């Protein structure tokens, strides 16, 4: 029990916080504070998102008519390559872990910072250098036209800026490793006192599972790209058939990283959704341990299925069969998560604000993304659908419908915590609706095109697909407007939004026990360890207009605790 002054000090809006405790560009550029690094990452990935998004809109505009001459074939190839490479390496992979995770993870553990703050900053600068090198391919005047997969031997034959781009991806790989390594150590050694593994928020579990993949898989990307650079400059004869190498081996190398990388992209998104669903239903998450272990299961199974990208690549029969069989096993933990989210909604007290709208869109879109994976996991249908628009639609449903939606939901959820200001919920929901409908309009027609045999990466196509492509293009612009609107809403909120309290949503994980915006050290006083899904532990404080832990509340004004009911 504490007095009102202490309550005011702990949960009121503070005069100094991590945003204003030091000033000048140096205090940002050389900061070791995980929150500031997270914000810089957020700005960085937003720039990458807009850049790659513009590439995407140019592509879609080009595809509006079947014989469009807006871009030359070379330009088209460079556009889709850069769209893919920037989106994957510079945007999606760092988006949730490095930007959002960086800000939230240490606070969820009640820690002052991540275990290695300097490494964290190094990770961000490596991200900048890597993205710079990737884009250096454009600045070099040569562009990049290999597809984001850098498949040999085309990547060796082409005289575009493959070396810049692969070097950039190599650096970005190390940036990702640094983040993952940091998170693994942070979760292992920096948890609050008595915070056991099963008292961690599920977002932490998912980040932990992600970090396992980042640490184990990303080095393989590093060596693959180094060998590709050596192949391109010295012709070492490992991947280049002209010198006795084996292009299919390159695909094995590449997908040994890049398939697990798919889970680097989606696992943190699932973690965010677990948080949002539970907080905005005000109900303990259903099946905590199943969701937690399914994250780790997905991470580990993700290493066993890379060959499903190679069913038509000339992979041998027996290996293909094995990979297909294991691929189906990944479906189970993903399905378990979705069912558990639904069970959490059941009998909850559901608040349909912006983050929750994104969470519900996630379930819808990820549902489609996941279920269409079944078509691609089954061997016979995959042969027909492989490398068609069906695949394009499938992975966009997972990457954009999944990761981007969860990122936006998570950003809206933690935005008041980061800035101490509230966003406009109505405009936020309009943005969410535009993103959701625009997204479906863009990618649903692509399932039809893919089934009918429209190959991907085609600069011009057959006239009978034109109507579908036009729908898709219109949808892409709606999606773009939706993202832009969300961006405007968020930026406005950060600087001009109404002040908000420390815990406006009655969330129970530790980060909400800090003030909004948090102190430089995250917590002025050691936070009280609460169960992250026991919302009863947070009680309303009238003076501060916020929810605070029962232990800090004025006992005269607090209703007696209802014991959670277990059947």
């Amino acid at each position, binding site marked *: 029990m504490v007095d009102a002054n202490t309550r005011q000090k702990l949960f009121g809006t503070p005069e100094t916080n991590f945003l204003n405790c030091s000033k000048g560009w140096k205090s940002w550029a050389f900061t070791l504070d995980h929150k500031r690094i997270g914000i810089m990452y957020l700005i960085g990935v937003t720039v990458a998102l807009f850049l790659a998004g513009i590439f995407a809109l140019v592509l879609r505009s080009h595809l509006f008519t079947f014989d469009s001459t807006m871009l030359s074939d070379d330009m088209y190839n460079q556009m889709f390559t850069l769209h893919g490479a920037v989106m994957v390496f510079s945007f999606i992979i760092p988006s949730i872990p490095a930007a959002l995770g960086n800000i939230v993870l240490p606070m969820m553990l009640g820690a002052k910072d991540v275990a290695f703050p300097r490494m964290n900053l190094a990770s961000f600068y490596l991200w900048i250098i890597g993205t710079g090198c990737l884009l250096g391919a454009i600045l070099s005047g040569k562009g990049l036209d290999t597809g984001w997969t850098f498949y040999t031997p085309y990547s060796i034959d082409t005289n575009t800026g493959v070396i810049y781009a692969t070097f950039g991806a190599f650096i970005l790989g190390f940036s990702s490793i640094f983040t993952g390594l940091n998170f693994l150590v942070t979760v*292992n050694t920096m948890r609050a006192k008595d915070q056991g593994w099963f008292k961690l928020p599920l977002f932490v579990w998912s980040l932990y599972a992600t970090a396992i993949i980042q640490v*184990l898989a990303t080095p*393989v990307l590093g060596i693959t790209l180094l060998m590709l650079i050596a192949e391109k400059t010295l012709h070492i004869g490992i991947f280049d058939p*002209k010198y006795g190498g*084996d292009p*299919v*081996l390159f695909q*094995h190398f590449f997908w*040994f990283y890049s398939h697990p990388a798919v889970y680097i992209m989606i696992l943190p998104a699932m973690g965010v959704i677990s948080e949002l669903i539970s907080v905005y239903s005000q109900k303990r998450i259903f099946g905590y341990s199943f969701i937690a272990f399914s994250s780790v299961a997905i991470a580990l199974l993700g*290493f*066993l299925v890379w*060959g499903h990208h190679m069913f038509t690549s*000339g*992979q*041998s*029969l*027996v*290996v293909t069969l*094995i990979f297909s069989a294991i691929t189906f096993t990944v479906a189970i933990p993903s399905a378990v998560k979705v069912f558990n989210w639904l069970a959490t909604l059941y009998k909850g007290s559901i608040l349909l604000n912006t983050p929750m709208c994104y969470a519900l869109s996630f379930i819808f879109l990820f549902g489609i993304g996941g279920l269409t994976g079944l078509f691609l996991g089954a061997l016979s249908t995959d042969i027909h659908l492989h490398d068609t628009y069906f695949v394009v639609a499938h992975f966009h449903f997972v990457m954009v419908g999944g990761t981007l939606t969860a990122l936006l939901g998570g950003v809206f959820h933690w935005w008041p915590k980061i800035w101490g200001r509230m966003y406009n919920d109505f405009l936020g929901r309009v943005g969410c609706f535009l993103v959701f409908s625009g997204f479906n309009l863009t990618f649903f027609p692509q399932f039809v095109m893919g089934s009918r045999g429209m190959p991907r990466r085609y600069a011009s196509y057959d006239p009978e697909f034109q109507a579908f492509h036009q729908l898709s293009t219109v949808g892409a612009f709606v999606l773009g407007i939706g993202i832009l609107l969300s961006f405007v809403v968020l930026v406005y909120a950060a600087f001009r939004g109404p002040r908000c309290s420390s815990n406006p949503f009655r969330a129970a994980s530790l980060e909400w026990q800090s003030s909004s915006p948090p102190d430089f050290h995250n917590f002025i006083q050691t936070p009280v360890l609460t169960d992250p899904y026991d919302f009863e532990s947070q009680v309303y404080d009238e003076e501060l207009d916020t929810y605070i832990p029962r232990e800090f509340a004025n006992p005269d004004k607090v209703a007696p605790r209802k014991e959670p009911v277990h059947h």
Partner: protein
Amino acid sequence: MSEHNEDLPAFCHPVSTKLLFGVFFGLIGLTILTVATSALGTGLGMPPAFAFPLAMVIATIKAFLVCAFFMHMYWDKSFNVLAFLSSLLFVTLFIGMTMMDTGEYQPTIEAFDRNNLANVDVSE
């Protein structure tokens, strides 16, 4: 075998010099052994198929010695040991799957080489 004394914090385990030198001479002995078996292998009547596994077994014993004593794994937290050893699992997976696959389709490469290599200008 670490000399632990009361003044040192719990996480500090200096290893005795005796043990370190012992491990070092063990490693040197194994290195000489592996070179010798390789150089004289066939002379000693060792079947050639045996040489490579033997060299790898010796290398693994050496690796074990380095890990356990030089790297203090013997005294380290089991989680760290587990993390380190799990990497070998993934390397095995990587090697195993790719080897299985390339081995299966190797005939298609050999057939292609037989038919086409004469036409390829290798010096290019």
